[in-house]
């Protein structure tokens, strides 16, 4: 894998984005810490200075200038006072005590340079931090100043900034390295998928995308694509099967047609003979046209374009109508059709197609059952939803053939003598599928029971 590729991956870009976000939050966090520490320390420093000023001013009120001078001198000798500086001067700006430069300071806060050679001039700091001092005027023109070195403050600031620099750097390095590693792993899987799909495109249709088994996004994607490939393969298989079936199934009627015409040419002697031959030929051609129409219709239904034509309809009415239309047909065939339809059942669907589905089932029952057979057509709303049944007490369909009868052109050996295209149940299956109806074949002891479970 080319290393440059990593930087182009989506996951690496995402990592980079996260690294940026993280760095920004680290910066904000440190800024808050920095300002809080700095402000607190400055506050503490000011408070200490003000307290010292107050103590010395009190000293002045009680003991006068001499007492202040003494107090300052005393303090300067204490080691714990390191970093604290004083100035006590008289009205002529003459320093009486302390180490800050005497001048006609105004009242208030001042920044002053650290006096040269002061006791704690820390060698490592080339440039000393300034002193923050408070100046007040006392009675009689005396001036008092107390200052505190901001050294510690400066130092703390530098420590915080230093720590921030390290944390920032480490965060960035970790994010980039981590991102690169994760991206490389991700990229490897994507490349495997890409390679596999290329192989599938090249014709190895049985290959499937590998999955890692963790059920992550890539696995889910692979699952989806694999299911799609299964479906495509199934459809392609079906298409090939249909192509073969059509070729095979139409050869029989075509050769029959040819034989009839041929024998008419050689044996027909009179006009009625020819007329009969032509009549038969037309009938044969009509049957083929029928087969083609049925195939087209099934294909159209399977393409699902007709879902757009769905509307709410009275399913009970459809069942009742078919029952009413076919009861006389059954009677003429010396069979009986019994209809039991619960009224008022409405569903969303295509009336024409549902009618044809039901007609196909009823006609199947009529045509494949013997004289005297009893056919039942029912529709009811039961505990598990709307269920329609078409049952007969004819020869039935062996259990092993139940799945096959829905295939195009499939015909039971026992029904080969009955005219038919072998497409009736395929159409039923297509219409049922379009409507989400579950079709189930059951043994009616004797006979066949077709159960339609509506959604």
């Amino acid at each position, binding site marked *: 894998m080319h290393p440059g590729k990593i930087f182009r991956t989506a996951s690496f870009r995402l990592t980079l984005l996260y690294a940026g976000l993280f760095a920004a939050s680290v910066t904000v966090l440190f800024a808050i810490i920095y300002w809080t520490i700095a402000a607190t320390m400055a506050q503490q420093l000011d408070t200490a200075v003000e307290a010292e000023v107050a103590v010395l001013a009190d000293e002045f009120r009680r003991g006068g200038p001499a007492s202040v001078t003494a107090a300052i001198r005393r303090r300067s000798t204490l080691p714990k006072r390191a970093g604290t500086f004083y100035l006590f001067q008289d009205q002529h700006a003459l320093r009486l005590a302390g180490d800050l430069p005497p001048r006609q300071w105004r009242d208030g806060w001042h920044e002053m340079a650290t006096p040269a050679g002061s006791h704690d001039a820390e060698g490592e700091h080339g440039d000393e931090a300034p002193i923050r001092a408070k100046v007040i005027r006392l009675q009689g023109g005396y001036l008092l100043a107390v200052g505190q070195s901001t050294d510690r403050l400066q130092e703390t600031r530098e420590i915080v900034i230093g720590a921030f620099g390290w944390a920032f750097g480490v965060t960035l390095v970790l994010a980039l390295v981590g991102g690169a590693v994760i991206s490389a792993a991700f990229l490897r899987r994507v490349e495997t998928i890409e390679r596999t799909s290329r192989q599938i495109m090249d014709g190895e249709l049985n290959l499937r995308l590998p999955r890692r088994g963790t059920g992550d996004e890539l696995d889910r994607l692979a699952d989806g694509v694999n299911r799609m490939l299964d479906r495509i393969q199934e459809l392609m298989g079906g298409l090939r099967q249909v192509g073969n079936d059509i070729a095979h199934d139409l050869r029989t009627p075509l050769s029959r047609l040819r034989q009839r015409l041929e024998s008419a040419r050689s044996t027909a002697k009179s006009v009625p003979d020819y007329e009969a031959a032509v009549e038969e030929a037309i009938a044969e051609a009509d049957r083929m*046209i*029928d087969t083609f*129409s049925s195939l087209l219709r099934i294909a159209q239904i399977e393409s699902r374009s007709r879902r757009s034509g769905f509307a709410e309809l009275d399913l009970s009415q459809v069942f009742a109508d078919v029952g009413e239309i076919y009861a*006389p047909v059954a009677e003429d065939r010396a069979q009986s059709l019994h209809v039991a339809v619960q009224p008022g059942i409405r569903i969303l669907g295509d009336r*024409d197609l549902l009618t044809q589905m039901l*007609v196909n089932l009823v006609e199947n029952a009529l045509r494949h059952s013997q004289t005297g057979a009893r056919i039942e057509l029912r529709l009811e709303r039961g505990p598990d939803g709307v269920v329609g049944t078409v049952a007969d007490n004819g020869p039935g369909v062996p259990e092993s053939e139940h799945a096959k009868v829905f295939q195009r052109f499939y015909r039971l050996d026992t029904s080969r003598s009955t005219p038919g295209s072998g497409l009736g149940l395929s159409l039923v299956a297509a219409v049922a599928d379009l409507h989400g109806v579950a079709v189930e074949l059951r043994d009616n002891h004797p006979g066949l029971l077709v159960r339609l479970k509506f959604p």
Partner: protein
Amino acid sequence: MKILVVEDDQETARYIVRGMREQGHVVEHAASGKEALFLAAAGAYDLLIVDRMLPELDGLSVVKTIRAGGVQIPVLFLTALGGIDDRVRGLEAGGDDYLVKPFAFAELVARVNALGRRPPVPAAQTVLRVADLEMDLLQRTVTRKGRLIELQPKEFRLLEYLMRHAGQVVTRTMLLEAVWDFHFDPRTNVVETHISRLRAKVDRGFDAELIATVRGAGYAIRAPG
């Protein structure tokens, strides 16, 4: 009747034109949508037979254009597009009937005759009569020679359709579509069964049979003689 056949396939066009002339109609032919529009605007036709798929301007557009101009000539669509959606689109565009190729010529003739005589019954007419058979559309009753004939609702519809096309041949497919709303070919003799039941009620016991079977084409109800 003066008929305009709009069909781009020369062989089919010749077949239809010749057949229709044999039926005694005056037939003209247009091979494209534009030609059809031109001819339809110029000549007064009684019926248009229009193929759906035409070069330049397709059949649907031709009929829509003609209808937009306020022309009410009956239109029969003739097409290889046999889906139900195609049928609905054709009828919505202003077609009066729809016949899917390949078709039997008898079917085309029957439909042309049915369309050409439209409207056979003025809307205000409430009684249909064929010889001594009488149908009262308001009372929903049928009598023959003054004797009441009891019919089921679907039988009534079947007889009504036949009587509205009295004297014409109606095919099995026309009946399936109009009476039972079946837009497919059933594999049992549904039509024959219902016709024979209707016959049993309408014709049995009377001196003349009104419902006739026309061999190779369909059925017709007509006054005897």
